C-alpha cells in the first residue's frame, strides 16, 4: 500500500484521539485527523474551532479556520471570547493540536520570530490560539515535519509552553493542562519521558531509527 508522509502523519494523529474527546481543531492536518477519527474509532469526537464553532460537520475541506462550511449544520456558534474562556480556559477541552517553526526537546514551541524579537531575522505569524491551547488543553499533540532546523536545542522564542525546562517546571507553574503528550512527525512519534524530554518511541516503516 502506498501513502504519503502527510497521510501517515494524519493516521498517526487520528490514533491518538479517543472516543468522546473534545478537540480544539486547527485547519489542515489536525482537521483531517479529527474527521478520520470520527469516521472510524471515535464517533463521539466533538470538534471545536477557535472561530467559535462547536460540533461542525463540514461538507468540504475548509481552507481557513473560519470557513462558512464549518458553521452551516454545526451544533453551536459563539464568540471568540466565549470559545477561549468558556471552553478552553474553563478546562472543557481534552485535546489541542499545535505546530510551529521550532520545537525544542521539552515540547516548547516557537511560532513568533527567528532571531531577536525586536529585530527579527524572520517574522512568523505569532501565537494565534496556541499560547492558551498549549497551556489549558488536557493533552496536546504537536504535528510537524521532521526537519533538523525545526528541532533546535532551545527555541528562539517560546510562543507556547511545553514542559519548559523540565516536567517539574510545568507542574510548579500551575497551568491546568497536561502538556505535550506526543510529537507526530513524518518519521515517527516522540513522547515525553519522566523528565519531559521528547524521546523517539516509534519509527515509521522504512525509517532507520
Amino acid at each position, binding site marked *: 500500500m502506498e501513502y504519503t508522509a502527510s497521510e501517515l502523519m494524519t493516521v498517526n494523529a487520528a490514533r491518538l484521539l479517543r472516543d468522546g474527546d473534545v478537540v480544539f481543531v486547527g485547519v489542515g492536518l489536525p482537521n483531517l485527523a479529527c474527521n478520520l477519527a470520527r469516521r472510524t474509532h471515535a464517533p463521539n469526537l466533538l470538534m471545536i474551532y477557535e472561530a467559535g464553532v462547536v460540533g461542525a460537520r463540514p461538507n468540504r475541506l475548509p*481552507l481557513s*479556520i473560519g470557513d462558512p462550511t464549518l458553521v452551516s449544520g454545526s451544533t453551536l456558534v459563539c*464568540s471568540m471570547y466565549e470559545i*477561549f*474562556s468558556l471552553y478552553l480556559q474553563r478546562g472543557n477541552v481534552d485535546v489541542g493540536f499545535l505546530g510551529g517553526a521550532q520545537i525544542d526537546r521539552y515540547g516548547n514551541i516557537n511560532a513568533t520570530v527567528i532571531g531577536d524579537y525586536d529585530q*527579527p531575522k524572520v*517574522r512568523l505569524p505569532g501565537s*494565534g490560539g496556541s499560547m492558551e491551547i498549549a*497551556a489549558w488543553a488536557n493533552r496536546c499533540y504537536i504535528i510537524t515535519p521532521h526537519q533538523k532546523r525545526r528541532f533546535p536545542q532551545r527555541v528562539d522564542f517560546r510562543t507556547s*509552553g511545553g514542559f519548559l525546562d523540565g516536567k517539574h517546571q510545568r507542574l510548579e507553574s500551575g497551568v491546568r493542562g497536561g502538556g505535550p503528550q506526543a510529537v507526530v512527525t513524518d518519521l515517527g512519534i516522540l513522547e515525553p519521558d519522566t523528565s519531559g524530554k521528547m524521546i523517539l518511541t516509534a519509527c515509521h516503516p522504512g525509517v532507520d531509527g
Partner: protein
Amino acid sequence: MSKLMPLEQAVSQFIQDGDCVYAAGFTHLIPFAVGHEIIRQRRRDLVLARATPDLIYEQMVAAGCARKIIFSYIGNPGVGSLRIVRSEIEAGRLEIEEYSHFGMISRLQAGATGLPFIPMNPTAALDLERANPRYRRVVDPYGGGEVVVLPPLNPDVAIVHVQRADRDGNAHIWGIIGEQKEAAFASRRVIITAEEIVDEDIIRADPNRTMIPGFLVSAVCHVPFCAHPSYTQGYYDRDNAFYLTWDQITESPEQTRAYLDEWVYGVDDRAQYWEKLGAECHDRLKVEPRLSKPINYGEY
C-alpha cells in the same frame, strides 16, 4: 434616528488620520470595502487593530495608511504568511503590539465592559509577556496564585459588517460572530456596513439575534458584498482562490501596486468593484439557501 449615509461620507466623517481602527470579523464579515475606501481617502498613521490582520490590513499597510498594527496572528489564513506586513516589520518600518488571540480578545472584552483590566490564567509561556509590557501580573487575593492581566482596548473606531441592520444601526449578525460585539462596545465610534438595510420590524421580530444596539452607532452604510474576498454567511462564499492569488500578487511590490491601482484606486466604490469582478466570480461565490426554522416569541 436614521444614520444611513454613503460609505464615502462615513469614512470621511468618522475616521481621521492617526486613529486606532478595529475592523472586526474573524475570517467572516471582514469589511474589505471600508478598508478600500480608507485607502482611497488616503488616511495616514492609522493604528490598525485586529486579531488577524488578514488581507484587509495588508492592503492598507501596502497603501501606506498604517503606522502600527495590534494583532495576535499575522498570517494569510490557510495559505501562509502576509508577505508585506512581514517584510515591513522585519525592516522596522511598521510598529507592532502583539498578543495571543485570547489576550487580544480579552483586551476588547475589558474595553467593552468598562473594566480597567481583565484577568486570564497564566500559560507558562513567558516570552510574549516579557516582550509586551502591557502584559502584567496580579496576585489572586483568594488563592495566592497569580493571574495575567491586560488593560482595555478602546479603539477610536470599530468597523462592523453585518448581514442586516435597520436605519438606526440595530444589527443582526449570524454565523461566526468573532469579536464584533466586543469591538462595537469597546470603541468610541462605530461604523456599520450591511448587506441589507431592513425595516426595524425585521430586527424586532428576533431581538435575541441583535448583537449591536443602534445607540452605539455613528453611521450605517448599505454596502452589499462589502466582505469580498472574505464572506457573509448565507449571502456569498469566501473567495479562497483570491486568498491564494494574493500570495502571488505580493511576491513583488510592482504587482501589489498594480493590484491597488486597478482594484482600489481604480474603482469608485464597492458596487463598481463587484461589477468588475464579473459573472464567473459572482457565480463561483453564489450560495444556495439553507434556512433556519422560525421561532415563536409569542404575542403578549
